[in-house]
């Protein structure tokens, strides 16, 4: 099963390498990773997705918690949460294709953010499955030139908060 682990860590040089190093060193895999400073500049928020059996996820969270720079951690997938990925995709769009691509982008509530005579760049955000769906759909009607995805970021719903 896929898990989304979200953590707050000290915004210090080397902290990220410790988190990433932990995964390779213990033979775990990171599927996606997003990281940036928060409203508190001393703290970074990192969201990563990984696959594994419950025992493996337990070890991953325990070992992440052991890192001195990791302040707090939550497994977002254990409770209700909102998750998003941002997609930027460059597709061929010529002739009749142009309106067809535009219609599909509208259906998925994406935006065309750059236009040339032959190409569109589309921006889309949503869950991983929505982004996957969109890429499959657009790929069936047009040629995909380039795909850029941020990986998942997420936040718990309602009152549940990850903060210091």
């Amino acid at each position, binding site marked *: 099963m896929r898990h989304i682990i979200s953590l707050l*860590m*000290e915004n210090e*040089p*080397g902290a990220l*390498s*410790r988190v990433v*190093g932990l995964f390779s*060193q213990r033979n775990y895999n990171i599927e996606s990773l997003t990281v940036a400073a928060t409203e508190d500049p001393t703290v970074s928020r990192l969201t990563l997705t990984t696959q594994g059996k419950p*025992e493996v996820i*337990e*070890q991953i969270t*325990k*070992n992440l*918690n*052991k890192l*001195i*720079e*990791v*302040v707090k951690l939550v497994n977002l997938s254990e409770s209700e949460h909102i998750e998003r990925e941002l997609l930027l995709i460059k597709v061929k769009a010529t002739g009749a294709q142009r309106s067809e691509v535009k219609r599909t982008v509208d259906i998925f509530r994406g935006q065309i953010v750059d236009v040339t005579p032959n190409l569109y760049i589309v921006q889309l955000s949503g869950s991983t499955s929505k982004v996957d769906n969109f890429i499959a759909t657009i790929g069936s009607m047009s040629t995909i030139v380039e795909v850029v995805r941020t990986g998942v970021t997420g936040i718990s719903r309602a009152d549940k908060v990850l903060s*210091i």
Partner: protein
Amino acid sequence: MELLSGAEMVVRFLRDEGVKYVYGYPGGALLHLYDALFKEKELTHILVRHEQAATHMADGYARATGKAGVVFVTSGPGATNAITGIATAFMDSIPMVVISGQVTSSLIGSDAFQEVDMVGISRPIVKHSFMVRHASEIPEIMRKAFYIAESGRPGPVVIDIPKDTCNPAEKFEYTFPEKVKLRSYNPVQRGHSGQIRKAVELLLSAKRPIICSGGGVILGHAAAQLTELARRLKLPVSNTLMGLGGYPGSDKQFIGMPGMHGSYTANMVMHHSDVILAVGMRFDDRVTNDISKFCPNAKIIHIDIDPASISKTIRADIPIVGPVDNVLTEMIAVVNELSKEANEKALIDWWKQIDEWRSKGLFPYDKENETIIKPEFVIDTLYEVTKDRDTYVTSDVGQHQMFAAQHYLFDKPNRWINSGGLGTMGFGFPAAMGIKLNFPDADVACVTGEGSIQMNIQELSTCLQYDLPVKVICLNNGVLGMVRQWQDMQYNSRYSHSYMTSLPDFKKLVESYGHVGIGVEKATDLKDAMQEAFAMKDRLVFMDIKTDASEHVYPMQIRDGSMRDMWLSKTERT
């Protein structure tokens, strides 16, 4: 407030922290620091001959005292030579602070002379590491380093110091930081009382209980509490390799070490138990054998300060995260409060069964052989000669290590010093030196082999310089014993590179350093020779003892089996 340079701050901090010895080797990136050390009188620097030995010396001291050992190494090769010793400390959770020189900040990343990314290269084998960015950070970083190294589950911490941050011309205000602020690091102070109660109730209802205690009992200063609980509940106790001395080895409730070379009794008891109280041990693969066949009927209570050690390989039924001394104290209190006795009738049957297993002897060998010296006999003799003295025994890695662990009966914690996790050959001798330096009145014996000793034999020179009269007990069988044993058992006696040709004459070698060498070739000469060696209190004595190369360490668990699947001799198996 005093004004000090970065280098002076490092030295002053160590003095203020109460450190007496640092072990190290100078080099370009560290010269400001060594210059500051030159003027310091209260802190003694021990110049080793190889940085690996510096880390093992610091490690030996730390294992005997529980306090962090301190190491100075220069950038590049100095730092990389220290890596084996840092990894050794990491695997056995030993507190250590390694200060590594780094090239000047402006050169970092330019592949400068003697540059290596020490923080990066050591990352997987440290509890934490720091890179100093400005001299003014040094006191706080060092305070944090000692705190992190010594608290919670201990471990090594690296502080990488670029040369310019030690510039003697730039001085900053220095105060010793009394308090540490680390919002992200708060080791648990006590175990969960509900879990502790559940654990006690399970133990009291057990029919075939056992305590298996590990290095955490030694590191957590919990030997007294462990002993009290075990005696109160009349439980059999097995100490792991790292836990030897946690419960007295000569006591009748002690049933030997468990695992790959554990006693027949301990492994049988583990396999047939219904409740295992695992204290400060981490179910290493050298203990468990195949985890899918591990102790099929046992419920497991696991006490450990490190939550990540619990249910890592063996699922715990009652996990208790906390310092072992506190948790065991609480357990004793609950036992007293419940004023219930253990399952008396079942325990009588259980002990009857245990004694039947034990009647085979814990670690039998051919004691009558007088033609050739059996390695077990060397350890038995060492025990006879030293058991009434205050003795520390260090070991290297291999057959001699297992024989020492099996045959020397440790009654006190912190007296058995060996590299259990990483299995580092070359560890025993420098570790013994670190202990002897700090406990000059105690006897320190390094049990080694002719293979292991040659991995750090250059330290004979350091022993001469600082007058460190350790006793080296070298079981010289002319082969890499443990490698050969596996080659015998699993590779049809194809001895691929497991023999040592061109061995030095160790006696002459040590004499060339001004030490004493004693050669022993006959079993009948051994005891007198050993007494002679230990009578020479002020001299390093190297005993070169010719032992039987064909001897194997038994019992030996059969690969991919359960705890009870063992070879008991070359021909007999369970």
